[in-house]
């Protein structure tokens, strides 16, 4: 397997707080990789560094071997790096279909067009509807976001990102806050992702992580604490003490 997204000695400080500390990390092509760690371990900060929302204090980010540390967020999306947000960031006033249309229109380069109506891009609409059908959202495609239950909103969050057809997909707690009766739709959708794309998932739900991941990285206080297969991580006494033990108490 070849490296898709890498970091080398990546650090980020907010004043005296070292949110990311000397992280060297590799997401491989076709990977199913999970990033876990206690609250405040710097997981979301790490995603923000990978996607270019934040600039690192030191270190490098590489995509397919190219240094993209200085590349802007929007440009990284064009390269094939996309993420979902821990807290929904949706176009609330628009319909579900229009939400997904937004992402696909950007990806296929339709968005700068000022002359022809958005509705005449049938290819974009069809692709969006196909994606929504796959995620079982087609029957509510006309509804606006506030009309949907939270679980469905999480799915729209995922749908927008999948509309970007990423090669590296970063999922920030995709099932957080979703009632367990609905979370299987999200898990199924993640399972059904094309094998070729590299997926990095952050989650607190250990059932989800151990079911999904082939490789787990544990982040503690901004630094890589342990890395290995689910079996190794599950058997690691230090990880159990720092994290899994705590989770069991919680």
């Amino acid at each position, binding site marked *: 397997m070849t490296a898709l997204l890498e970091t080398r000695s990546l650090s980020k400080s907010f004043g005296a707080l070292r949110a990311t500390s000397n992280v060297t990390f590799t997401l491989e092509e076709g990977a199913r990789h999970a990033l876990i760690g206690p609250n405040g371990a710097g997981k979301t900060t790490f995603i923000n560094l990978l996607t270019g*929302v934040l600039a690192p204090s030191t270190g490098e980010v590489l995509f397919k071997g190219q240094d993209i540390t200085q590349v802007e967020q929007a440009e990284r*999306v064009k390269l094939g790096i996309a*993420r979902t947000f821990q807290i929904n960031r949706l176009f609330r006033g628009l*319909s579900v279909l229009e939400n997904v249309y937004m992402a696909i229109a*950007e990806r296929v380069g339709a968005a700068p067009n*000022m002359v022809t109506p958005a509705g005449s891009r049938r290819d974009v*609409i069809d692709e969006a*509807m196909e994606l929504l059908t796959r995620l079982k959202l087609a029957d509510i495609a*006309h509804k606006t976001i506030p009309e949907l239950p939270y679980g469905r909103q999480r799915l729209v969050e995922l749908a927008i990102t999948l509309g970007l057809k990423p090669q590296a997909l970063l999922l920030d707690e995709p099932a957080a806050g979703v009632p367990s009766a609905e979370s299987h739709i999200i898990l199924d959708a993640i399972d059904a992702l094309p094998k070729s794309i590299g997926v990095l998932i952050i989650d607190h739900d250990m059932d989800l992580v151990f079911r999904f991941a082939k490789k787990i990285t544990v982040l503690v206080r901004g630094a890589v604490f342990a890395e290995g297969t689910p079996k190794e991580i599950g058997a690691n006494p230090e990880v159990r003490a720092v994290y899994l033990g705590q989770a069991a108490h919680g």
Partner: protein
Amino acid sequence: MSVTPIQSDNPAARALAVRHRFRWWEALPWLLALAFYFAFPRYLGFGTELLITILFAISLDLALGYAGIVTLGHAAFFGAGAYTVGMLAKHEIWTEPISGLVIAAAVAGAVGFASGLVLLRTTGLTLLMLTLCTMGLLEETANMAADVTGGFDGLDSLPIKAVFGIFEFNPLYPNTQYLYVLGVLLVCFVFVRMLVYSPFGHSLTGIRENTMRMHAVGAPVRMRLIVCYSISAAIAGIAGALWAQANAYVNLSVLGLDRAATVLIVLVLGGYGRLYGGIIGAIAYMVLSHFLSKAYPTAWQLGLGLLLVAIALFARGGILGIVDNLTRRFKDRKAPEPSSP
């Protein structure tokens, strides 16, 4: 890619595919505007002012209503257009009206682009204050450079040529002005309508709804905003140029906070981000202020203020928002939610 029946039958897909189509009632404002011309020949001055306000409000709607650019200084561009036409005419450099509009649009658009490059790095209250400052700077420049701008007195008796070399502007009988402004408004409106229904317009809505997500789907957000702001500025410039041509004078009032605030009130009243909000709002505002000032010459703005408070508290979508809610309620009653198939 073939279209499966599920997809083309989906109400959301259908709605998106046809939402840009012209509907019958969209002809109404233009028919009414023409009817006004024949029915109220003595009020054509009022009518011309109204049409110009509509165009100005539509330009603001593009920036504020669609892209969510909070601005209190849009009169900067109205003024830039008005002074462009005024100075060119007064100094006998350019007096042909239609090409004058094009020049005014270019100048106002350039001012929008240059200020947008700097201003649109900010958002919210900072942006609001900076737009206000930009307008203040322009106003003071126009005041100080009295040699070319006429300073506080402005420029009057502008020698504007006849439209197409045939139709003279007559300040006493503004028939030409009215039809000329109506024609320009129609062209600009069709342009803005095309813009807001395009994928570009859709992406502006996306920026308004969630800027951070737009970055995350790979949109060049700041460039989009700058383009939108420049286009909006150019249209505001055309509105200002029309004002200068129709009145044959230009003074500092075109650049003032009064004008910028009025157009904002117009848009809030009508409902922003709705294309027709500017039209409805301008009519409501002009008619209300006309009658209120007749009935209560000293305190008429109080009535307007109370109305605005009511709109801000109870009807964020303005008059059109109220209409939308009513029609939705009516439709819901007529056709209850279809049970799941």
